[in-house]
């Protein structure tokens, strides 16, 4: 057992876990942040993507110990109170989901994509960048539309801040 200290969605937490515990298990089972999903559990589907120190990573493929001291942002941590994050709003407005299982990972990956590419995003880039996130419902079309829409909104909201 080890004590793992994290900052999760801005809040300092400390959890006592077995060393074999994965980051996603800490989030879901210890902190009850069940918005982060486990899809394949083999590092392929991306449903478990969260931001660790600003980088979108698969939380099923990281030990909790590796994240000790890090700042973690999950799907629960991106809205401002009742105001959805622009990426969440764009997914809703473009109907970028059906069953919703992959959506938390899609949104966390997509925020990272927009942050890395800024205003230079085009459809081909979005499709290529989302290759680590698998959706079995939508055929991706509306997801791609949502990410492109959000890229514009995020630029506007950054400019407003």
């Amino acid at each position, binding site marked *: 057992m*080890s004590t793992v200290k994290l900052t999760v969605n801005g809040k300092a937490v400390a959890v006592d876990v*077995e*060393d*074999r515990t*994965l980051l996603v298990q800490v989030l879901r089972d210890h902190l009850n942040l069940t918005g982060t999903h486990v899809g394949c*559990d*083999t*590092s*392929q589907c*991306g449903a478990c*993507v969260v931001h660790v120190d600003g*980088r*979108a*990573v*698969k939380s099923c*493929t*990281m*030990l909790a*110990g*590796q994240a*000790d001291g890090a700042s973690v942002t999950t799907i629960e941590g991106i809205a401002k109170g009742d105001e959805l994050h622009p990426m969440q709003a764009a997914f809703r407005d473009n109907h970028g989901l059906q069953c919703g299982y992959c959506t938390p990972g899609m949104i966390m*990956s997509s925020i*990272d*994509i927009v942050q890395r590419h800024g205003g230079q995003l085009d459809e081909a880039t979005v499709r290529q*960048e989302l*290759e*680590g*996130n698998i959706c079995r419902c939508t055929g991706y079309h509306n997801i791609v539309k949502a990410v492109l829409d959000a890229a514009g909104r995020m630029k506007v909201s950054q400019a407003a801040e």
Partner: protein
Amino acid sequence: MYKTTYHRASSVDEAISLFGKSSEAKFLAGGQTLLPVMKQRLASPSDVIDLGKIKELQGVELSGDVLTIKAATTYYDIMTNADVKKVIPAIAHLTSVLGDPAVRYRGTIGGSIANNDPAADFPAALVALAATVKTNKRSISADDFFKGLFTTALEDGEIITAVSFPIPAKAGYEKMRHPASRFALTGVFVAQAKSGEVRVAATGASQSGVMRVGAIEAALKANWSPSAIDGVSISANGLLADIHGTAEYRANLVKVMAQRAVAAAG
């Protein structure tokens, strides 16, 4: 995953000392291979020693004609590094088609070559560029480092600290990506050294892991152009065959990927 004890090393020396105190330890870098393997219970180390936060294993250095990438540098940091993009853009390209964005944030060059998966990308770059693997004990040429499937010249408790690449005159890498795993169904790295020497290495093709392709090297030595490879025939003997492609298919891919890599190298 079976029970294990996690240690975070703050220096190479500390990592080696932790290794010596454990019964069946494994070094952990980005964990993008080791952790999935442990989750499948195909590996059950008593201890995992995390090298990911060791400062002396991070970063890229350019000095004279040599580009050195420290072992725990992530694919993302390699791919976006200005020196890598400038002096060996083929390595930046290789890194950009490896895994997916989330994997590239965690996976490291040292982890990739220590694992030596027969379909991994970096072994081909090291062999074609005649790179040198630096460890805490010695320097090993890429030719001597890769020993076959998942096997390297590393001894127990030896840690890769960096990889040094001589800057080539020209280099290119192209691969047929497996659409699900993103590993190379076959990938070929071609390089022309500043001395004029041509080296070509294929990954994902041979049953013994990364291999040099002498026939293509000879053709490119005579004439560095994609069409020079037109007449080369690659034997399917000893090549991998599985549900994704026959040995003959992979033999053809070696040729096609080599042509594309030469075209990319210019």
